[in-house]
């Protein structure tokens, strides 16, 4: 019988993670990965997410999946030698447009301006419509409770754990609210609430769009000019040869940029993240 304490998984939207800019050293274990502090004050080391696979890339040693939850993307990566957890081969069994539930550990990397996140999966399973709705509904409920606590705490500079608990919030929600106000005092919480209020649901990609995205990503990867990035003119010319419309190429580049798949390394030069 399991009796040891385990770390809770955070059911959070991709948007909450994408907007996170702060990490905290893990005091419990010197070699542990840093803890991510999100704009809603959530301390994240493990997540439980649900969404649709929108990108897949399999290389020699690793597999990567991009999962969209309707508010943004999560990035999964697994290696050949991942012990006792889903590895490259297991990830490779899933296909684009599969709906999946994933529990995993969060890795963060980057600099002061931008942090990137990837998830090392501990559990990945295909999910059905009920699970997708249940996850989305719970994640929204948990986020909204935190938003209400943040608003309540923001009304009074003297707000404390105790005053928030007295108003009906849990200790966890009170801590999140105070952490949010301390670390993200100017965060646009109204926009976050607007995005999640519409019960976001991930959309399946049509085949043509998927084909274009995959082709453009592969082209950028293979034509990265010594780390300076792939030129826009080259991408455009290659796309024409593949029969893609020019205005559609611009649209796909923009989408890949906002999905966090590529970035503009310098003017009109693109690299894969």
């Amino acid at each position, binding site marked *: *019988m399991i009796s040891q304490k385990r770390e809770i*998984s955070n059911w959070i939207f991709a948007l909450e993670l994408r907007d996170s800019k702060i990490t905290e050293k893990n005091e419990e274990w010197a070699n542990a990965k840093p803890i991510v502090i999100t704009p809603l004050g959530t301390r994240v080391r493990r997540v439980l997410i649900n969404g649709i696979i929108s990108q897949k890339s399999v290389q020699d040693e690793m597999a990567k999946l991009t999962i969209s939850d309707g508010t943004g993307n999560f990035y999964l990566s697994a290696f050949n030698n991942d012990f006792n957890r889903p590895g490259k081969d297991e990830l490779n069994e899933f296909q684009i447009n599969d709906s999946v539930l994933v529990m995993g550990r969060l890795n963060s990397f980057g600099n002061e301006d931008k942090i990137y996140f990837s998830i090392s999966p501990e*559990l990945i399973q295909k999910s059905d419509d009920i699970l997708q709705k*249940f996850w989305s*509904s719970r994640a929204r409920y948990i986020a909204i409770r935190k938003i209400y606590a943040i608003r309540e705490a923001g009304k009074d500079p003297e707000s404390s754990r105790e005053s928030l608990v007295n108003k009906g919030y849990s200790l966890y929600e009170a801590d999140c609210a105070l952490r949010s106000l301390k670390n993200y005092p100017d965060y646009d919480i109204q926009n976050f609430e607007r995005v999640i209020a519409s019960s976001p649901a991930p959309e399946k990609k049509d085949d043509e769009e998927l084909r274009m995205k995959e082709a453009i990503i592969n082209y950028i990867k293979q034509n990265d000019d010594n780390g300076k990035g792939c030129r826009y003119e080259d991408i455009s010319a290659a796309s024409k040869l593949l029969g893609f419309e020019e205005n559609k190429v611009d649209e796909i580049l923009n989408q890949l940029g906002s999905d966090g798949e590529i970035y503009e390394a310098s003017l009109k030069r693109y690299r894969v993240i």
Partner: protein
Amino acid sequence: MSTKQNFLKISSIDSVSSDMALIAKILSLQKKALKNDKGESMYYYGILGDETGTIPFTAWTFSSSLRVGDVIEIEHASSREYNGTIRLNIDARSQVVMKPGTDMEVKRSYSEKKIRDLSLKEPFVTVKGKISGVIEKEKEKNGEMITLYYGNLEDDTAVIRVTSFSRKLEEGETVKIVGAKVSEYNGRLRLTISDKTQVEHADLDFKIGIRLSNISDVKSPISGVSLAAVIVNIGAKSGVIKRCKTCNRKIDDDFCEEHPDDGFYKDLFAYFTAEDGTGYVHCTSGKSSLEEILGLTPDPLETQNITSNQVMKKLNETLLGKPVVISGDFVKNNDSLTFRARTIKQMSEDDLRIVQMFEAEEII
């Protein structure tokens, strides 16, 4: 301690104040270890009472020789509001002296609680609910035969076992119990009705239905709760187990150490972890709760030809990473709560609607 001190009565402590002195009786006392950056420390909490009322307290310094029933004199205490209740705070500045040989009449006051919110921190409470599962038992006490009544009390949040020493419990009766004692037995909370407890008929201002709860909202070992969750882990030793035919204990070999000649029977057992986004709980389940989900019948396992590996495979296929509604009882186990699942079912569209209604009510 000063004898000229102006001692406050508990009923007059109604706001946040400091430097108070009072004489009170310890009505309940518990201690808890606290770990922080500075190391491990111990604090005490419980209920104090005097002839005007009762008040919960937290003591950061407290003599370990003090016991429930002792009357104490306290100086330099403060009070603060926590969770909507005024608490007395006894810290390093406070002085606490026992007054041996002194007794004190205490006027009890009981706050009305939902069953899910009951805990040993508040040992006397008022609760409302419906009585069910009543059984009577005769017992000898001080040379006399008395009748004890055992049953369950349920409200819209949970179920709790009730023992009544004084009043007959009627099946299906809806009651308000004033001054019931909360205690813990075999890892579960129970209520005791004594001759000091008032039990009166009451109309319930709530409906009893599915008692859905967030995992993080349950702090005590209460029963009759449903959780909507995802199963994120299934214990590797789940499957077919053997039990002694006489004592029902799980046995590792083909015989029980205490009843080696009595034989064994096969049973199902699974343990798993459920998460609902607010928390997690380790769950256990037996044959009756697993049969339906595994496609088995209530017949003995010996006749159903199923192996541990087959059970494990089916559990992984039907439960792992799946949304479920599990109903059962929280049990205290080595200071943490585990969940004994009585029923497990895969979440349906109807269940999802109930979950979403529950969330909407909580947000409002």
